[in-house]
């Protein structure tokens, strides 16, 4: 049984690598990419099989051992790593399959395919690596692979500059991570990331440097997840084709969360690192979500949305709510990829929108409906065993209540067409709450043993509400007439696309003759200092 | 006109021009302060640039239209300047005449 599981694990991780090779070698036609896409699906299936294996039979791993039986490199499948593996391989498969048709006309599609596969493999290793060294190497590889993905089309405007900027920021973050690894290695050698005991031992050996190590790891996580000042590389990536964005937002940008969860034992004890992470992440979440509301283009709005969501995820890590962060990581990845794939559907065609129902519900009705929906959904959720037991469970309930209230408020804008419609909606809301609760509860109780314990440095989960407060504050400020213009102007300007660095304006003056459409030509003096 | 008829003297400007100029003409008219105007589409005629068949069944923009606007004489000057430049580059006819209106407030 273990044998099968191990094969699936290795297969899931290596299949995209084979696909990468084939797409490079495959020649001009699409055949190489088609095979790579099929291998991508194979890897996803194998990942799911591995997950099933773990669910049925417990964890296992494949390790390359060195002297004294200490692991050098390896892949390990336990509840946590296999969840991440399924996400990464699944995203990779869908991205490859999508890109197969989407980049049909693209001569350089092979480059994208190969690099994307490398990213998938690297992130899979990051997710399942047994040792810290393996994780860091894979992390750097994922970053490099992604820079190649972004830069696959240098002929498109803004791509070269964006790739360069991404490379610079990633280099910064990766340097921090490598430095952290070096420090760890000095004190504790190649840490085994699987056994909690080994991690505690390593943390102990690191001793005084643990604060520095934790901070360096946090910087790496913040960079990869585009938080705060480390996140300026993200908006530029829109110059790359849509599949690149989908891969980024679903598989690469949540690397920060993956890092913090897997290295939770090493980071969680440092109050400095956790406070820094929380401050940057929560600030980014609040600001980015506000910026998103004033972005006129669909992809730009998605970029800021991701920044905000990643901020939420890292904040959850900083308060030690690792399960919540994991669920967020997985859910958001699929959500954002779907939105990016479907970003071409935002042109409303004429004549399809139905007439609005005539009546409008009163504010009282809407508030009542919103509150009862929230209560219902949250109530259902709370009933499901296991939902509240994990760290930060109550805070999540509050956020869920807020979401349900917003949804209820929006839906009950007009009275539903019939009692049946209202009943269907209520049922759907309850079902949504139940489903979400099931995911949290079932997944939670299954994964919990594999998650790190919240360290002493992690903040109190109630701090998460600061993001809600910040968001509400900005939303409130925008309503105030006096502040409105100023605030919107700031949002529009800060959110505006970055300007590529200057080249000298290539058009040049040859002569000073001027013409009008009717063909009359005149001379004029070229006087450039005529401005007053 | 006899003063006892209680009419006010104004300037009447008529332009025969291609249908696709109507949008810029309406912009020009609102610019100079003309409150209202009348457009008759699909007129035909013979001119310097040849014969223009007016009635095109499926094309409003390439047939000729006639715009009539009445406005106080002091505003007419600006309008005529604009129209002169407009018609410098395209075929069209500009006719200016005096006219008397019964309800001057309609045209102020």
């Amino acid at each position, binding site marked *: 049984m273990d044998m099968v599981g191990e094969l699936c694990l290795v297969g899931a991780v290596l299949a995209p690598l084979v696909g990468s090779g084939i797409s490079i070698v495959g020649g001009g036609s699409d055949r190489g990419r088609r095979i790579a896409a099929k291998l991508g699906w194979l890897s996803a299936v194998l990942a799911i099989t591995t997950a099933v294996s773990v669910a049925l039979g417990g964890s296992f791993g494949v390790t390359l051992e060195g002297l004294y039986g200490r692991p050098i490199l390896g892949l390990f499948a336990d509840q946590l790593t296999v969840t991440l593996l399924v996400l990464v391989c699944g995203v990779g498969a869908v991205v490859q399959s999508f890109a197969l048709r989407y*980049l049909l006309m693209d001569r350089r599609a092979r480059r994208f395919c190969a690099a994307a596969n490398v990213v998938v493999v690297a992130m899979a290793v990051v997710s399942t690596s047994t040792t810290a060294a393996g994780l860091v190497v894979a992390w750097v590889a994922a970053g490099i692979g992604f820079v190649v993905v972004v830069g696959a089309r240098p002929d498109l405007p803004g791509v070269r500059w964006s790739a360069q900027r991404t490379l610079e920021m990633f280099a910064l973050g990766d340097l921090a991570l490598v430095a952290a690894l070096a420090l760890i290695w000095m004190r504790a050698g190649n840490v085994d990331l699987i056994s909690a005991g080994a991690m505690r031992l390593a943390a102990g050996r690191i001793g005084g440097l643990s604060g520095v190590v934790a901070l360096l790891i946090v910087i790496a996580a913040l960079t990869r997840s585009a938080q705060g000042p480390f996140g300026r590389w993200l908006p530029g990536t829109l110059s790359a084709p849509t599949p690149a964005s989908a891969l980024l937002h679903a598989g690469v940008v949540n690397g920060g969360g993956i890092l913090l969860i897997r290295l939770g034992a090493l980071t969680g004890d440092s109050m400095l690192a956790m406070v820094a992470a929380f401050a940057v992440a929560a600030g980014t979440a609040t600001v980015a*979500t506000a910026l*998103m509301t004033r972005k006129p*283009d669909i992809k730009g709005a998605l970029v800021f949305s991701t920044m905000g969501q990643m901020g939420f995820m890292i904040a959850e890590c900083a308060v030690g709510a690792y399960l919540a962060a994991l669920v967020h990581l997985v859910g958001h990845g*699929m959500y954002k990829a779907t939105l990016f794939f479907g970003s071409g559907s935002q042109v409303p065609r*004429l004549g399809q929108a139905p007439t609005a129902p005539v009546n409008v519900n009163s504010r009282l009705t809407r508030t009542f409906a919103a509150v009862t929906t929230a209560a219902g959904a949250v109530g259902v959720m709370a009933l499901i065993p296991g939902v509240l037991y994990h760290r930060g469970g109550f805070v999540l309930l509050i956020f869920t209540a807020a979401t349900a209230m917003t949804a209820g408020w929006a839906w009950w804008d007009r009275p539903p067409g019939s009692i049946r419609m209202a009943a269907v909606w209520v049922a759907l809301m309850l079902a949504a709450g139940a489903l979400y609760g099931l995911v949290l509860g079932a997944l939670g109780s299954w994964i919990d043993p594999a998650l790190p314990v919240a360290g002493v440095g992690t903040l109190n989960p109630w701090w998460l509400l600061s993001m809600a407060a910040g968001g509400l504050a900005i939303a409130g400020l925008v309503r105030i007439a006096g502040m409105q213009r100023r605030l919107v102007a700031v949002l529009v300007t800060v959110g505006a696309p970055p300007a590529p660095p200057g080249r*000298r304006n290539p058009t040049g003056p*040859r002569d000073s003759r001027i013409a009008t459409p009717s063909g009359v030509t005149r001379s004029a003096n070229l006087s450039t200092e005529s401005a007053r | 006109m006899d003063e006892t008829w209680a009419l006010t003297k104004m300037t009447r400007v008529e332009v025969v021009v291609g249908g696709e100029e109507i*949008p810029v003409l309406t912009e020009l008219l609102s610019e100079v302060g003309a409150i209202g105007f009348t457009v008759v589409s699909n007129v035909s005629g013979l001119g310097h640039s040849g014969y223009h068949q007016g009635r095109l069944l499926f*094309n409003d923009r390439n047939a000729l239209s006639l715009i009539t606007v009445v406005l106080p004489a002091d505003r007419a000057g600006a309008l005529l300047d604009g129209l002169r430049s407009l018609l410098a580059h395209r075929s069209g006819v500009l006719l200016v005449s005096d006219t008397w209106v019964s309800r001057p407030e309609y045209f102020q």
Partner: protein
Amino acid sequence: MSDRELRTARARLLVEVEEAARLIAPLWPLSTFIAVNPFWDLRQMSFAEAIAYAVRVLGISGYPSATLFAEAYRSGRITVADLRVALEAHPTAEDGKGSDVKILTATERYDFVYGTRIAATTEREVAKWSAAFLAKMLPVPPDSGFYAAWLAMIPSDPAIRRIVGRSGRDRLAQLSVQPEDAILSCLERLGIAEEDRVSELARQLARMPGWAGHAKWRSRWAPPGQPGPTLHLVDYLAVRLGYEAELFSAAVAGRGRMGRSASGYLRGQPHGVSRHPDVDRIEAGRVQIEDLPSDLGDELSGLSVIESTKVWLAAYEGHYRDQLLDALSRPASLSTEPPAVQAVFCIDVRSEGLRRHLEVVGSYETFGFAGFFALPIRHQPWGSAEEIDLCPVLLHPSSETAERPCGETDVAASRQLRGRQAQVGARMMFDTARKAAVSPYILAEAAGFLAGPMAAAKTLFPALYLKLRSRVRTMLAPPVATVIETHPRDGGMSDEEQALFAETALITMGLTRDFAPLVLLCGHGSTTENNPYASSLDCGACGGNRGGASARAAAWILNRATTRDLLAQRGISIPEETVFIAGEHDTATDRVIIFDLHLVPFTHRDGVAVLEADLERAAVALAKERARLLPGAKGHDPVAQVTTRSADWAQVQPEWGLARNGAFIVAPRSATIGADLECRCFLHSYDAAVDPDGVALETILTAPMVVGHWINAQYYFSTVDPDLLSAGDKTVHNIVAGTGVVAGAGGDLKVGLPLQSLFESDREYHEPMRLLTIVQAPQDLLVTVIDRNPVLRELFDGQWVHLAARDDQLDNWKIRRPDGTWARWSPAATYTEEVTTHG
């Protein structure tokens, strides 16, 4: 300045703006994409002159590249004979050697000399505000114009102080409320003399043809009541020039502080300023072919680059013309037996394929007519909040139609409406939750677990997913039988008007007698998934919408007894047993759906069933033919392939649309039947016998042909200048405000068609040629029609459109020369033979 002087200055400026905007193509919102000749407003000039002007202002090349011609020669697409004929026809006197100097704005010249970035900064700021305004994100009153909104927001802009300095910001806040006055003062500050204003404004607009195009559409083409933020040309220029003037002042002031004078700097310029490729752009590459016969090669080298390019283009077009006219010269016989069904399709090139396949499958007689079926209507679909203008954009709708349920009870109808409202409500709920302050976080998680499997399913099994989704939607909002009708009370068509339109349609296409028992009026549309340019694949004659509603309205009108009585009075008697039915051809899947079956009398139901079966067979044949040309479709079952492509959200090239269009044929079907026109020709039926005074011919040439020309010109220019006149690569498109598209993160709106509609990999799929109009009508009638319509004179004399004609089936083809005379056509090959035999 006195009020009179002020108004005069403003009026003059308006006219100058109009002149300057002539070379900007209007850009319709994506919901109703219209393919347009980008230089339509320059058509008073000839094709060559307009391109020469656009080269100087926009920086385009205007002609196909040397590589394309060289490749065409190598593959035999252009032969030596074609070149000889083209050279022969080429006017020896070259068009007045126009200036080859680029037109630049004052700030562009300044940027080049001093290395500043005024122009780029202006563009960034203008794009930022334009996009925010269009997306209604600015806190200004809803009916406020763009300039007013910008003035209101500029004092609060955090970046403005950094860009133009404090004094600049103060001056901007002091700008006149009237955009025209602001433009005038800014032009003065930039030192633009009055006679140079038009060039400066033209180049200002040309720097961002996308936003300028949107402004031009709003100012010159959008109906005055069109909802949405109003971004007018004058407003747009005022904002642009506001930035330019301030940035310029700030730059000059800064330079002055450094103690160097501009003129001194200029005098000290080193020779040979490094030549950037853009500076050299005006001179396109000369076509280099080694193995041309020496005399031909010498003659071509003797011409300037532009002139030789024109010759190559003429040869390229001539080759196609010869092939086509040759194919049409073969006598064809229509079957003598009366057809069981007559089918009228839109003139769209894609209909040609379906017509061709349908005619061999059974006894069908097909006609071509512009897809709005002579009904310029504003249509309100059942339960819809919006009305759609179903007519070419050259026309204003003259009446209204509405769709209403025709079932017995209202229960089903209101159930459908409620279902649709519920779906919209769900989407709005999702959007609100997505953008609110606290809710996005959990929403992403919760929705993600459903979205993930959905996306995977959609990517793996597109057709199946689409079927499931349709089924769910049908369950929520079950379809109701409806009928389209006009109501004379409010804006509808009176009986006489209906009869008039019906008569126009029938006479124009030449269907006035020998009606078959069943007549199908078939509009068209295209079903694609996740495609911002979906409207570009729909019917251009219906304003970028699907044509089914027009067909239904036309069929309803023609079936009415009142209409038939009135028609009989005018000499068109439609027999009682003739029934008109309406259909819609989905050009992505080639399926034809027939509407309103509930209105078909029982006697004809069998006939309709046979028709549907035959349409299915024709569809399969057409799908096979098309699938050979679709990229990536090799090796798959053609019918499954087109169905999948239509449903696939990852497919960027679902169908080729009107690519490779080349000709517009105005003739009875007898002229074209049996010829395989490869879906490259617009086919409009016309019978001179029923059109003694040429009104029908004139109607066809001044509207459908203009629409065809626009489509052809859009494809031509987007193919020839993909950087400037096409929308670029679709894979990086980013929809702004649901109205337009930018590439990547932001910047200028994209104009024209995307590369995926024109190119296959990096080779042109569309053959960039000017439209060849082919008319079968008595010559004097044709000449009369041309002479009394300036638009036709401009198009034909200016060589925007080529014209070939013959009097009837047996006559020889003649080509119209730009000066109005006619030359007898003979294929280039025979011409060369003549030349060689006679020395």
